[in-house]
Every structure is written in structure tokens, then in C-alpha cells.
């Protein structure tokens, strides 16, 4: 016991050679550097909650942004495990604080409807553990049609690729059959795709498979993501806050 108390005493008042000799001022300076970094992260526009980066699409199950950044250790497990190579290290999409955190880049890969591997491997549960059934209901973003590029919309051509790939049980992409004219002035009927914002989960397979490239005629942005009640489109009447 005497030995043990001596050990504790040595820990609190170490003998000369065991001391780290860090210096009070230097430690204080390092602490201030840490606090200063947090302060500077806090004055980046991304932290203001007034604007949301459309490209900041997090994997399904990702916590709210503040909580996510407090947990993610940027280890790249989710990036490695993603079978569609959809998850990439962020650059500045979530401010400098979010450097190398996971980002789903829907121009490069889509989030597979039957997969929850990133939530299985996240060591800190920044992407919380979710079953596939739950994942299939989580919106990570929302697709929108670029009518000036989409083949039926802009060129009166027939194309149904996005609707065919859409994985939700009731398709989030639906068609309106419209009579249009082609360049020769002839009348013909095309199916113009539209997005049902209630059904779309933002998985991005429509963007990846779209035959129009650089950029695709249907693209995904982060608006509507389940994890952020602020980043929404006010689609349902009750969310206007009227009455």
C-alpha cells in the first residue's frame, strides 16, 4: 500500500525525469488555439443555420449536423465499405470543421436502396445503426428535374430511365403524358418526368443512371433531408404555420 501511495504521489508530483515539462504558458496557448479553432468554425456561414449547402448530402442515418460533427472521426470506414463508391471525403461543404467527413456525391455514386453498411461500420455511431427497413424511409435529399436538359422536357425525346431505376415501392418519379411538337413541327406524345417530393428519398440512382451527362438532367440536393427540420421545402400545408 505504501508502494501504491508513493506511485500516486509520483504521478501527481513526478520526479524530474518523468515530468513532461510542457510549460504552463504553452499549454494555455494550445488550449486557446483549440478554443479559437472552435470559435472560427462557429463564424463560418455553414454554422449560421441560415443557409444549407445543397451538396452536403450525408449518408442515411447520419445525425443532425452539429451532433454529427461532434462524433465523426473522419476515419473513412463508411467510404471504404460503400459498395457503390458514393461516399467521399468532404472538402469544405460543411465548413473547414467538416473536412474529410463523409459526403454522398450523387454525380459519382448512388445510395443503394437495400444497403445499410455505412451504419454498420461507423465506430462512433455518427451514422447511427439503422435497419434496412428504416434506412429506406430516411430522406437524404431530394431529386429535381432540370427541364432545360431532360430529354422529354427539352428535346421531345422519349426517355423513362429515371423512373425505371427509382427504387421506392411507389415510384417517386411519375409521368405526365403531354402532347408536344418536335423540331419538324410534328405533334407527338411524350412522358415528362416529375418528382413526388413526398416519396423521393434522395438516393440519387436517377442522377447516376440519367443518360444526360455533365451534369445529369435529374440531380439531388440536400433539401428535404430527414435529419434537418430546417432544410425543408414547406411542401405540406400545415408546415406553413398558418392559423
Amino acid at each position, binding site marked *: 500500500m505504501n508502494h501504491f501511495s508513493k506511485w500516486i504521489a*509520483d504521478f501527481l508530483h513526478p520526479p524530474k525525469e518523468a515530468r513532461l515539462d510542457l510549460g504552463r504558458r504553452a499549454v494555455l496557448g494550445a488550449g486557446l488555439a483549440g*478554443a479559437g479553432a472552435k470559435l472560427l468554425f462557429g463564424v463560418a456561414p455553414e454554422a449560421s443555420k441560415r443557409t444549407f449547402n445543397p451538396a452536403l448530402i450525408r449518408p442515411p442515418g447520419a445525425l443532425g449536423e452539429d*451532433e454529427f460533427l461532434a462524433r465523426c472521426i*473522419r*476515419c473513412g470506414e463508411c467510404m471504404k465499405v460503400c459498395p457503390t463508391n458514393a461516399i467521399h471525403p468532404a472538402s469544405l461543404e460543411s465548413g473547414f470543421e467538416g473536412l474529410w467527413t463523409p459526403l454522398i456525391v450523387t454525380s459519382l455514386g448512388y445510395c443503394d436502396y437495400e444497403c445499410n453498411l455505412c451504419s454498420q*461500420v461507423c465506430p*462512433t455511431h455518427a451514422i447511427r445503426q439503422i435497419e434496412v427497413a428504416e434506412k429506406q424511409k430516411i430522406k437524404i435529399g431530394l431529386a429535381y428535374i432540370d427541364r432545360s436538359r431532360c430529354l422529354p422536357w427539352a428535346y421531345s425525346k422519349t426517355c423513362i430511365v429515371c423512373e425505371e431505376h427509382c427504387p421506392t415501392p411507389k415510384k417517386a418519379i411519375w409521368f405526365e403524358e403531354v402532347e408536344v411538337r418536335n423540331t419538324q413541327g410534328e405533334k407527338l406524345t411524350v412522358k415528362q418526368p416529375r418528382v413526388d417530393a413526398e416519396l423521393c428519398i434522395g438516393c440519387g440512382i436517377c442522377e447516376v443512371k440519367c443518360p444526360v451527362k455533365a451534369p445529369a438532367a435529374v440531380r439531388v440536393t440536400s433539401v428535404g433531408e430527414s435529419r434537418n427540420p430546417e432544410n425543408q421545402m414547406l411542401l405540406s400545408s400545415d408546415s406553413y404555420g398558418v392559423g
Partner: protein
Amino acid sequence: MAKKQKTSWIVWLRRLAQASFFLLFCYLFLQTVYHPINQAGRGVTFFFNLDPLVALNSWLASHVLVGAMLLSLVTLLVTLVCGRWFCGWVCPFGALHNFFTSLRGGPAKQKLEAGGYHPWQKAKYYLLVAFLVAALLGADVVGWLDPFSFFFRSLSTSIYPAINKALVAVFTWVYDANPGVGPVRLTLVTEPVYGFLRKYLLAATQPYYLGSLLIGSLFVAVVALNFWRARFWCRYVCPLGGLLGVVGKNPLVRLNKHQEKCNNCRLCLVDCQGGAAPDRGWKPSECFYCWNCKSDCPAQAITFNAGGRS
């Protein structure tokens, strides 16, 4: 100069442990992949769960601790008793640095001069303090420099894709060129090898990652710095090493130098991994317990003893 000593069996045991943990890390890395049916490999977060820095930081920042991270308590307890034993024997990133450090050329005198303690080794403690304070205020950015995060991220987003691309290119080239004489073709050898790699090592499809050049360059730079200073990352940068250095600053297992035998040749510095100054004073917080100093000492003046300070 005294003749080279026979390498101690403990050094060989340490190398075996390092190689095993390094291979385990690589195995778990390769297991971080889609298995049928929708199941990642088991235990792929093992090294992150061993990491008290990750546990402490994410707890400070989010006030939540993932249950599996309690495993890091084992690391802390062992460190209390055995100092930064973890850095020298377990850490796979440390093993990589150790390997590249061992590739250094140059005369022993040069290594000796560069091998001693340097005040800049305190940098890792300051980094640790900065990360902990930032985490306390809610910004958990320790993953930038946490050794397992750094290593895994570099492997997954740049090194592994590059290796994958190179291997596929080489085997495809041999297949296309099909060199050989008559029925004896090189592909008779390369195709079975390629089949093996395809099954156990290569990615199903070539992976690509945004910003992989920056992440990969940092990794290569950190590895290359081993040629300037032995285990540069572990000595100067690693915030986990800093944390373990603080926890293990008064270990029970200690280096003892028997002054009556020491002839001040300072050969103990030549292969010292941590810059722990075994020649004068010994700094427990910098020692990786690699046993090189004891193994190198021509006068048997260095021993490691359990039981704390006498």
C-alpha cells in the same frame, strides 16, 4: 566502436507482435466491404474501439460514449502499468513507421546524433490539448490526426485505390502482351495469381475518391519523414501518443541504467524509436518499450524492471 550485439529475443517478439497487429489491421480493412447479404465484416472497428483518444474526444464533444469503446479502457490500464507499450507493440500505424525507420541508411553515428530526445517532441502534447479543448466546446476534429483515422482514411481513399489500379494495370498488360515462348506463356503464372488477388485483395470495381491526392500526399509525406527522424509521426505529431504519454508518465515497468557498467558510448540512441533519452535520464513518456536500447547496449548496462521507482 563496440561490436554489434546479438538482437534480443524480446525485440523479435515485439516485431512479431507488430507484424501481427499490422496484418490484422489490413485484414480488417479488407473486411470493410460488402459481404453477402448486406453484411460488413465483423469487428472492423476493433482498432478504433481500442483507441482512448477517439473515445475521450467523442465523449467530450457529444457526451455520448459508444459501448464498444469501453475496450479503450484496457489500453489505458495497460499504459498506466507499462507506459507507451501500445505504441511500440500494438499500433499498426506505429509498426508501419517502425518499418520505414528501419529502412534508413547512413552511418550509425548519424542515427545516434538524431536519435536523442528533442524538445519538439512536446508538440504532440500541445496538439492533444488543443484537440481536447476544441472537443470540450463541441468541435471533434481529432480524426484529422488520430492515428487510426489517419491511417484508415489514407488507405481507403488513396493508397488502396492506387494499389488496386496498379495491380490491375500490370496484370492486364501481361495478359494483353502475352509474352512467352511457344506454349510456355507468362500468363500461366500471372493468371492464377491474378485470380487469387481478385478474390482476396482487389476491389470489385476500381474505387475513386474526391480529394484523394491531398490525403494520399499527406500520408506519403508522413511516411517519408521517417527517413529524417526515426518514427517522426509517433515522436512529434501523434495525439494518441501524447495521451498515452500523459497516462503512462510514471509506469511500473521502468528502464534502469546501471551507471557502473555504462561506458557512455551512447549506442543505445542509434535504434531508439521514441527519442526517450535512454543515454541520460530516460523519459518514460517517450519510450515505446521497443527494447532496442537494451538489445544494442554492448555493456549490458540497461535493464527493464517491474516494480516502479526504487
